[in-house]
């Protein structure tokens, strides 16, 4: 019971404190939302790109996208030539229709339906070449590059390198941006709580004199900071849930690959946003209250 009384006391006081200092509290909450939206966006994009990476991994070693005007005879001739190349173990033809079915299947496996919102997505016919010797990828690619039937050569390595580069860049820029915003949020929360603490200095003084323990003095302020983080996180989760479906086809359009992620991923993003929001709120207010109470003693 004493513990429940303490929790009740701290929560009520934190709630009162949040609204007593409403302007600063709401400003801090707004910066929390900004940080968490950035963080969630970064996490979604990186996870989508990682998903694309896994997709590429599952693909064959060399893919030759065929030109639009290739006849079936030319295509068969090309396939026969490729099959004769050293190091080639298998050659499969993938029609534009089969490519679309495969893309839809990939989405279905991840619990989603491919909805491009009516956007015209053109998928190429291609031949997918499996190699018995991975080192031959370069030679096969070079040989096919000179053929008029082939519009573009995609080797696994090139795609890999490109995507890894993109992921690395996005991750670095994103983390720096999130880090800077997180610092701003931390300072906002520290200042908000500091103002709250100073505005209640008389109350704190009385609490200390009548024998209130540090917990009774400290926790309402820490919870006030956590409240900023919690409200910010809840609003961010709602925003992410609202834009979740529309961003899926947008990501496919932007990255030109199936970046779809599982619907369960929304839960993961929500948990990440909530824990970071609560964590930053708690850390900021803890730093603020700790420095004040240490000085008071």
């Amino acid at each position: 019971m004493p513990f429940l009384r303490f929790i009740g006391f701290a929560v009520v006081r934190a709630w009162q404190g949040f609204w007593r200092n409403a302007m600063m509290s709401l400003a801090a909450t707004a910066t929390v939302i900004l940080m968490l939206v950035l963080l969630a966006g970064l996490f979604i994009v990186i996870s989508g790109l990682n998903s694309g990476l896994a997709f590429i991994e599952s693909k064959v070693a060399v893919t030759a996208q065929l030109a639009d005007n290739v006849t079936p005879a030319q295509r068969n001739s090309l396939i026969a030539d490729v099959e004769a190349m050293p190091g080639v173990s298998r050659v499969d033809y993938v029609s534009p229709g089969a490519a679309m079915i495969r893309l839809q299947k990939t989405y279905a496996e991840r619990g989603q339906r491919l909805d491009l919102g009516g956007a015209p997505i053109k998928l190429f016919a291609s031949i997918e070449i499996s190699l018995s010797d991975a080192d031959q990828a370069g030679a096969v690619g070079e040989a096919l590059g000179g053929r008029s039937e082939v519009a573009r050569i995609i080797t696994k390595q090139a795609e890999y390198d490109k995507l890894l580069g993109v992921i690395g860049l996005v991750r670095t820029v994103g983390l720096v941006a999130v880090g800077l915003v997180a610092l701003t949020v931390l300072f906002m929360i520290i200042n908000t709580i500091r103002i709250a603490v100073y505005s209640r200095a008389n109350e704190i003084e009385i609490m200390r004199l009548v024998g209130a323990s540090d917990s009774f003095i400290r926790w309402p302020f820490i919870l006030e900071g956590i409240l900023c983080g919690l409200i910010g996180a809840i609003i961010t989760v709602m925003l992410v849930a609202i834009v979740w479906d529309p961003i899926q086809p947008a990501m496919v359009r932007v990255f030109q690959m199936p970046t779809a992620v599982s619907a369960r991923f929304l839960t993961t993003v929500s948990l990440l946003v909530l824990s970071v929001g609560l964590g930053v709120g708690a850390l900021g207010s803890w730093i603020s209250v700790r420095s004040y109470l240490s000085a008071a003693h």
Partner: protein
Amino acid sequence: MTAPLVNATVQLRHGRRSAADARMALDSMTATLLRRSVARELEQSSSVISMTDLGMTYPNGKVALSDVNVSIAPGDFVFLVGPSGAGKTTFIRLLIREHVPTTGSVIVAGRDLARMRRRHIPALRRRIGIVFQDFRLLPNKSVYENVAFALEVTGSSRAEIRRRVPQLLNLVGLHEHGQHLPTQLSGGEQQRTAIARALVHDPAILIADEPTGNLDPVTSWEIIQLLIQINELGTTVLMATHNQEIVNAMRRRVLALENGALIRDELGAAYEREY
């Protein structure tokens, strides 16, 4: 205390006493020392406040108190007097463990404050009620809420608060003013509220730091009457004051500080030295 031993040593050196005599003198001195030590311990254990060889020097080098020895028994009513800067505030801050002495010891309600861990300070402060010249009430809370606040922030149950606060408001004569805000009260009523708040934990000691400093003479006497009433209920009262009229009229124990030194500790005394 060491005279018998010195005498015995001198006589032994001059060949006037035997070694047996010297041993007897030594035994006698040891017994005296033991008796005094026991007496001192008994005195300390029966004191609600005990300061021994107490010294307090601030980090800037200012000596606030030096070599103070005081023992206050439970139920005493003691005035702490002295000019501004004499060390009264430091004296009080040491008692509530706002400061730690640089030398000597302070024992309050059986606890050695110099060795006290920080987490034990709240428990100490519940044994000490304190009121100030400026009342220090929360302006946005009613009289009832101001008193209840002291219980609420120390984890008391609502039932306990509902039981205790009216009792205290009755004691200080404010039972009809419970819903008033401090701004709606006179200075005397505000000080009564502060006293009620100081008593919420039924403290062993009530420290009043210039409680009548902001009050007119009539109201001051009303507050003193209240403090006497509280003292008669068993609470030790230590009152720091510049009010000569009150000290002279009350004729209680007076501790006088000057330049950080305890220059007078007198029972039934006046504000100024009378001899």
